[in-house]
């Protein structure tokens, strides 16, 4: 479980996050939605420790990330897996090397164990047999899959995904969503997804937070989302005419 409390962040005097709190439960898909530029990515970076918030706390199962010593931070980091927007694969390394990378750097496993674990994760995301391809030789959807494989290779307790299905065709997008859902259920991971794809929200969102101009305006599950009383959110989710018709 991850709890965030009153996270605030300003860049050059411009407030991007104005005190955001929330709880992300274990074994659930937590989704943060919101329009472009509302600070979703900044919030994610604050949670995973890439940007230090000006105020607020981030608790990983009760451990306060920003008030821990270096060792505790390191321990928490080893329990996180992050899928970045473009996959963020190391482009000088093959697919297999990318997935193996955390094992090589952070564990003392034997060569055979590392190889087996990396191959297992690649298989898990449906990419068996692509071991020796370079990131530049695979499609965007495959990159995200490799990114997921790399994120889960260390058996994380917390999984973060920044726009896991942006830039993908609808079918591939749904497959990536399903994959994340399966992995979350299978390993009881606390998963946090940043997206503006309403499809994902309706399909897999168990706990949804709506951000608007740096504030959390709504929180709930995907079944009650269509009946919210928040005008900004209705405007956001019903921007899509199909959804609007479906709700009526």
């Amino acid at each position, binding site marked *: 479980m991850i709890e965030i409390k009153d996270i605030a962040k300003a860049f050059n005097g411009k407030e991007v996050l104005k005190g955001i709190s929330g709880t992300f439960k274990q074994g659930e898909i937590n989704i943060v939605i919101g329009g472009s530029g509302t600070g979703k990515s900044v919030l994610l970076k604050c949670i995973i420790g890439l940007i230090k918030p000006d105020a607020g706390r981030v608790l990983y199962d009760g451990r306060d990330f920003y008030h821990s010593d270096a060792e505790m931070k390191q321990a928490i980091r080893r329990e996180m897996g*992050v899928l970045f927007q473009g996959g*963020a694969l190391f482009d000088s390394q093959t697919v297999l090397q990318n997935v193996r990378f955390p094992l090589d750097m*952070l564990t003392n496993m034997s060569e055979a164990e590392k190889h087996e674990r990396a191959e297992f994760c690649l298989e898990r995301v449906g990419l068996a047999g692509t071991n020796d391809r370079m990131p530049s030789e695979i499609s965007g959807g495959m990159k995200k899959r490799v990114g997921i494989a790399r994120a889960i290779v260390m058996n994380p307790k917390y999984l973060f995904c920044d726009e896991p299905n942006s830039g993908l065709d609808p079918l591939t997008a749904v497959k990536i969503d399903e994959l994340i859902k399966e992995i979350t259920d299978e390993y009881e991971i606390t998963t946090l997804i940043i997206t503006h794809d309403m499809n994902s929200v309706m399909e897999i969102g168990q706990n949804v937070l709506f951000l608007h101009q740096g504030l959390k305006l709504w929180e709930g599950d995907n079944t009650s989302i269509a009946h919210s009383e928040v005008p900004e959110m209705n405007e956001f989710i019903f921007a899509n005419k199909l959804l609007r018709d479906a709700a009526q």
Partner: protein
Amino acid sequence: MSVIGKYFIFLGTLFRRREKLRVYWKRFMEECVGIGVNSIFIVAIVSTFIGAVSCIQTAYNLVSPLIPVSTVALIVRDMTILELAPTITCIVLAGKVGSNIAGELGTMRISEQVDALEVMGINSSSYLVLPKVLAAMFTFPLLVILSAFLGILGGYLAGTLTGVISPRDYIYGIRDSFVPYNIFFMCLKPFVFGFLIATISSYQGYFTKGGALEVGQSSTQAVTNSCIAILVADYALAQLFL
């Protein structure tokens, strides 16, 4: 001014929270190939031609019958060892290696590869940059030794093939009043320049913000700043050590 402060803080981060030594050894070897071995060709071409041209031009300028012909070789040798091999080679390397480093790190930054390292708990600046700096400081002196050798050889070939100097005079000239200390000075320069090029270019690349356009700008800036740093350091070293 704040840029210089940031640069020194950046240098400090290279030595904090290091990873396993085995990891660095592997990265160091990779960078030696990328930075050193891959530069042999350009260094060889540039040095041979510069040696050849300086021999011909020196001979053209020395027309007095009072000066022995072997002086041409002596001048070529001293110019090569003191300035052409170390400084010109490093300027060429600033172009090749500097833009390469800044481009690579800039791309890694904007495609979030640097962030990916950081969230794994890896000190990205140390992991990515330190091996580059060490590899540059190790391979640049070797490249300069190669360059000096080829420069003097280039002078020999050009001088003897065009007949401005006989092989005997040339060999005599390059051995005449030779100062071994200059060789030490020749190797010291690329050691310093390698450090400057690698750290300045890494700094430019590592702190790239934005997109592909900014990566290009970082590369250009890396080369410009490296060249300026080399010339300033060249002057300072000459004052200090000669």
